[in-house]
């Protein structure tokens, strides 16, 4: 069932490739706006790069959250899924994993290229990628709670942002600090471990909360 859900969501995403691409371009465009709005000074850019990339990743991940459950909700699939005897926890985990693969992994792959534009060194690019790899699943996991809670509500897109962005703050802090530390030449391991701890915690708790939220919203 777990694999089936992932495969199904991946196929569905493949049919809507444009959505995936637009999230990616959103990420690229947001990151590119910062040099234009602040300054092209390389030293300044280097110091803001971690924050810029991370904030852009946060915002981009908000965009794809709306699609996580809403299509299934509209066509009634979600109701059927809730009725199956399969553990909902695994189903939710599968959907979140599929969403991460589709929406977040392209961002993670794109981030080093954007990092080059900000003059980050090779080492820092590696840290940036690792921090995003550890952090973006948390974004998907926490975001899924928000997506499930706002299912079918008016103006749910803005609402999701209001609910979820404050909860993203620890990820943003640890992720950006790891890259910061690498730029400063110190060891980013402490931040990355904390990021990993947050990932482990949210892997255990977030799908559970999402299940509860789905049951509440669909009922």
């Amino acid at each position, binding site marked *: 069932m777990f694999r089936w859900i992932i495969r199904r969501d991946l196929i569905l995403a493949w049919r809507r490739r444009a959505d995936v691409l637009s999230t990616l371009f959103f990420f690229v465009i947001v990151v590119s706006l910062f040099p234009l709005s602040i300054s092209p000074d390389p030293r300044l850019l280097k110091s803001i790069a971690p924050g810029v990339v991370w904030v852009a990743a946060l915002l981009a991940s908000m965009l794809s959250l709306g699609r996580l459950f809403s299509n299934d909700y509209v066509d009634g699939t979600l109701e059927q899924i809730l009725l199956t005897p399969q553990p909902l926890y695994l189903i939710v985990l599968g959907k979140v994993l599929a969403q991460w693969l589709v929406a977040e992994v392209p961002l993670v792959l794109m981030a080093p290229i954007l990092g080059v534009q900000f003059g980050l060194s090779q080492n820092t690019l590696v840290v940036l990628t690792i921090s995003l790899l550890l952090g973006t699943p948390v974004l998907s996991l*926490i975001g899924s*709670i928000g997506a499930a*809670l*706002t299912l079918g*509500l*008016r*103006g*749910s897109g803005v*609402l999701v942002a*209001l*609910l979820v*962005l*404050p*909860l993203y*703050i*620890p990820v943003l*802090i*640890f992720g950006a*600090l790891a890259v*910061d530390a690498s730029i400063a030449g110190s060891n980013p391991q402490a931040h990355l471990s*904390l990021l990993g701890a*947050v990932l482990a*915690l949210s892997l255990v*708790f977030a799908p559970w*909360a999402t299940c*509860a*939220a789905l049951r*509440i*919203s669909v*009922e």
Partner: protein
Amino acid sequence: MPNRKINWYKYAAPANFYPLAGKLIPWFGIPAALLFVAGLYIGFFVAPTDFQQGDAYRIIFIHVPAAWMGMFLYILMALYAGVGWAFNARLASMMATALSITGAMFTFLSLATGSLWGKPTWGTWWVWDARMTSTLILLFLYIGFISLQAAIDDPRRADRAGAVLALVGLINVPIIYFSVQWWNTLHQGATIRLLNKPTMAPPMLAAMLIMLAACWLYSIAIVLMRLRCIILEREHEAGRTLTLGAKTAQFSRMESI
């Protein structure tokens, strides 16, 4: 029939609580007003001027209680929401909704007064120090809860969705506080420590504790007032969709109380 029993319970609890809440409000509201007066009197006329901060420190008599209440009411709100969700107790869920606005109000008040205190003592209106930043995030969490509940029309779903969000927020609060602390100690540049904590003379401490008690009692009174409004609104909604008759008679009884 168990089903009927549950329904009766669900219907009766808030309606029974309504007159009780009405009787309780003055018992909390009047002492709150008296304590506010007493606390302000001690704070402004008895407590001496702090030798380092001058009279600016007198802001803490409102600032510290507001900050504590903002924090504490969030925990209380999440617990009430959780109880309401777990035991299907509508009154507890309504309590959480009633608490959210007062909690957000106190959190805002602590930010505003903190800023007004920061200007003379730190020299800036706003510092990204750990406490102010995490209070700001706490305000965001309140705003999320309030706007989620406002967006949902069905009160049952609003209660439960709010409970999930509040509990997730509650688990997150320590992580957020820790991460902000961590962030703050690493960016030493942004930290301005409060070098001269006012040495609390007994009347200062007394004034602060009395103001805290006043805020407490005020919160209870205002939350009960809001709870009464919510009960009326909800029963009214229920009355519109269900049959009229007895229910509307009950509303008029409730109003006269």
